[in-house]
C-alpha cells in the first residue's frame, strides 16, 4: 500500500496539497507520435485542447451528457471529457483534425456541408467523429438505427434530420447500407 493512503483527514489534506509530478504518456494523435508529460487529473479533452492545441474537439457539458467531445481512441468513439489522459498511455487518438482538412475533407464532412447538417457548428466535430465510427462499426443501416446510434450526440440547434441524411448518404456511398 502506498504510504500516501492515509486514514485521517489532516493527513489526507496534506497529501491533497502536495504537488504531484506529471507522468509520462505516449499517444499517437492523428498519426503523429507524441511523448507528453501529463498531470494524472487531466482529461483527454483538456490535453487535446489546452496542450496540443487541437481545439476542434469541443467541450460542451464536460460530463458525458452531450457528445461534443467525441473522439476515436483505438478506433472506437468515446467521450474524451471522461477519460483521464494518463490512462490512455500507448493509445491511438483521432480527432476531427485528423479526419480531414480544408480542401481534403472526409466524405462525412463534405456530406455535412451538402446536407446543412449544422447551424452553430459547436456539436459538429463530435457528430462527425461519432458518424465516422458509426459507419466503421457497420451495424446501423436504416434511418431509425442511425438516429439511435447517433443518440450520444446532442444538437441544440436541432439539426438531427439533416445529420441523419448526411450519415445515411455516406453509408450508402460506401456500400455498407
Amino acid at each position, binding site marked *: *500500500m*502506498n504510504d*500516501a*493512503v*492515509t*486514514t485521517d483527514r489532516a493527513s*489526507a489534506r496534506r*497529501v*491533497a*496539497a*502536495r*504537488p*504531484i509530478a506529471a*507522468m509520462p504518456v505516449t499517444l499517437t494523435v492523428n498519426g503523429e507520435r507524441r511523448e507528453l508529460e501529463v*498531470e*494524472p*487529473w487531466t*482529461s483527454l479533452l483538456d490535453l487535446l485542447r489546452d496542450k496540443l492545441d487541437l481545439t476542434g474537439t469541443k467541450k460542451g457539458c*464536460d*460530463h*458525458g*451528457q452531450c*457528445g461534443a467531445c*467525441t473522439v476515436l481512441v483505438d478506433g*472506437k*468513439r*468515446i*467521450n474524451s471529457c*471522461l*477519460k*483521464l489522459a*494518463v*490512462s490512455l*498511455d500507448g493509445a491511438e487518438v483521432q480527432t476531427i483534425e485528423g479526419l480531414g482538412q480544408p480542401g481534403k475533407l472526409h466524405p462525412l464532412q463534405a456530406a455535412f456541408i451538402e446536407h446543412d447538417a449544422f447551424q452553430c457548428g459547436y456539436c459538429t466535430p463530435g457528430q462527425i467523429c*461519432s458518424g465516422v*465510427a*458509426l459507419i466503421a*462499426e457497420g*451495424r446501423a443501416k*436504416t434511418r*431509425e*438505427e442511425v438516429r*439511435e*446510434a447517433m*443518440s*450520444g*450526440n*446532442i444538437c441544440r440547434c436541432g439539426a438531427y434530420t439533416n445529420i441523419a441524411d448526411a450519415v445515411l448518404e455516406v453509408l450508402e456511398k460506401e456500400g455498407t447500407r
Partner: protein
Amino acid sequence: MIRFDYARPDAVADAVRAGAGEHAAFLAGGTNLVDLMKENVARPLEVVDINRLPLGEITDLDGGGLRLGALATNNDTAYDDRVQARYPLLSSAILAGASPQLRNAATNGGNLNQRTRCYYFYDVDTPCNKREPGAGCGAIGGVNRIHAILGASSQCIATHPSDMCVALAALDAQVQVTGPEGDRTIAFADYHRLPGDEPWRDNSLKPGELVTAVDLPPEDFSTNYTYLKLRDRLSYAFALVSVAVAMRIEDGRIAEARLALGGVAHKPWRSAEAEAALSGADPGKPAFALAADALIAGAVGQGDNSFKIDLARRATVRALEQAAAGTPQSQTDKRIR
C-alpha cells in the same frame, strides 16, 4: 478535481494491495468515477487504474454459462455473439442504456459499481446521507421525480441507475470478487443493497474488494424475454421505470418467470411472490396483472415520483405480454407494442 496519486498495476494482486487504502479508488472506464471526481463527490487520493489487469475477456463456463470479464466494455458485451444468441435480454438492456460512446468506455464491473444519479448526491451544496453520512436527505420533500418507490428508507430514496443490472438480476447472475481476504462469489440479488441506515453503502463489497467477473448461468431465456425501458426522452436517458422479463413457457403455461424492475429502488427489484403468481399460470392478462400488483406491493410515492407506481404496474403487464408473445421491445424502434 482534487490531486491524486495514480498507479497502474498489471496484476490483480497488486491492484488489490494498492486499492486497500481508505482513500483509494479503482478506475476502469471512468465514465462515472471521473465525472464524480469533477463534481468533488468522489475525492480519492490514490487512483488505481485497473485497465491493464487481465479481466477483459468473455469466456464460456463449464456447464453452459458465460463469464463476463469485469473489464469487458458494455458494448463489447452487448454485441458479443454468445451474449446476443444466448442472453438477448442482457444485450437488449445494455443497449437501452447510455450512448455508444459511453458504452465503448464503460465496463461491466463499473456498471455494477456506478453510483446513483440522484441530483442531491451530485450537488455537494445540498445534504445527502449517501455522500455525507448524517447530513440528511435533500430528495425527501425535495425534487424527487427520479427517485425510489420501493425499498427506500427515511435516510435515502436514491435509485440504482443501471439497465444492465436489471437484466443481470433477472438472469440470476453471480458476481465474482477478489480482495484482501481472497476470492468469493456473491449472488446478484445480494450484491446491491437497500439504503436502510447505511445509505452510503451501495453494495456488499468489503473495503478493497474488486469485481473480477459476472457469471451468467446456463438458462438463457432467449425466446420469451423483454427489456422495456420508459424515460423522459427516447434515448440517452436513465429509466424512470424499466422492466426485465425472463420467461420459460412449456405446454402453453408459464413454467418459470423472472421479473426485475429498474429505476424504482436502490437495487434491481424482484419479488418472489410476483414470480410465484406466474408459475404454472396461463400466460395472459389476469395472471400478469396479479404479478404486477405483487411486484409493486408496498410501493410508496414521494410526491413528484408517485406516478411511477402506476407506471411500473402497467409497464410490468406490458413487458409480460411482450415476453409471452416472443416479441421483445426493440431498442431502436421505440414504439411500445
